[in-house]
């Protein structure tokens, strides 16, 4: 089973248009042994990233899409964002409510110097069902929204915004 392709948050894109400078993306990796960073368990099924070998690639792809759509992606920029995915988990076993969490550390290198290092965490919960045929697709659909929420926090972080300038 695969997570749905990431769909950019237009609120994030419109914020980036106002606050970000042209930026490049560096390496995105996973913390070894971090929960769900390679595959997320959903009631006995395993949900993998539709891009790359793990969810760091999904996270990098999400940043790429939002920066690109905002016109703020420049692979030649001296400002480079890198990421380390620490946690990435969905608890889909609940009979009426399920939840998910994602946590990642982001770094900004500007002109060769580290200007920002910070960890962001997003969590969500949603109504679910006893039946896997409803609960599993619903959990699957929540994953891109969880990533969107993480990026909303990152793009809105004043220290992060300052580091990009």
């Amino acid at each position, binding site marked *: 089973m*695969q997570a749905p392709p990431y769909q*950019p948050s237009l609120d994030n894109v*419109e914020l980036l248009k106002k606050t970000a400078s042209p930026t490049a993306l560096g390496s995105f990796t996973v913390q070894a042994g971090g929960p769900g960073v390679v595959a997320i368990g959903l009631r006995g099924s395993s949900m993998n990233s539709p891009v790359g070998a793990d969810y760091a690639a999904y996270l990098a792809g999400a940043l790429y899409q939002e920066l690109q*759509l905002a016109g703020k992606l420049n692979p030649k920029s001296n400002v480079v964002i890198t990421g380390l995915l620490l946690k990435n988990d969905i608890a889909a076993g609940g009979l009426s409510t399920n939840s998910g969490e994602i946590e990642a550390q982001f770094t900004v290198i500007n002109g060769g110097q580290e200007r920002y290092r910070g960890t962001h965490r997003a969590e969500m919960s949603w109504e679910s069902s006893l039946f896997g045929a409803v609960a599993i*697709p*619903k959990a699957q659909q929540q994953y891109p929204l969880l990533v969107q929420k993480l990026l909303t926090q990152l793009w809105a972080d004043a220290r992060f915004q300052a580091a990009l300038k």
Partner: protein
Amino acid sequence: MSARCLRQSWLRWSLWFSLLVWLGGCAHPLTLSPNLAAMSGTVETKIEKRVGLLVTDADRQVQVTTPGGGGDKVSYFPYRDLEPALYVALSESFASVARVASLSDPKVAAERLQYLVKPSVRTTSFSDSVLTWPPTLFTIELVVSVNDSAGGLVTELRVTGEGRASFDEFKGQPGLSANRAAEDAMKKLIQALSSSPALR
């Protein structure tokens, strides 16, 4: 049969019946999530206009339920799901895009938007399977009205995207036919926008 047996039997049947009713009324959730990367770089020359994409909060709340397989149904939010793809399609076609909440949004004047694009979405779904619920065929009809900043109609474009998926493909991605239909519709929309003389 003793009264106790009758009561137990009735209870068992009641529980089964409740379960069937509950299942019958329950729609499987889907999202329409096209591969946006497949939509980029399809137009050589963008139209040199600034446009606003108008999707209202009421549009985003619209939930649609259509048939799946095995007598089941699928349910999704077409405007909410397709809004990012529409934004990407407009970004591919026009010099700049902004979101607006209404025709009288102050952003129209502040960002000197020249066109306002309002989409209307209709969907159908179908499955030839009696055993699995994800649709094997999904269609999305997009009718896009383009108005100038004074409210006058510039043009109206209509495209239909179609997506198919077989069991082997969708068993890990139940919304695959819908995703394919969305991607097809958006590519056709980009094409229709770029070849519309009224927009140049």
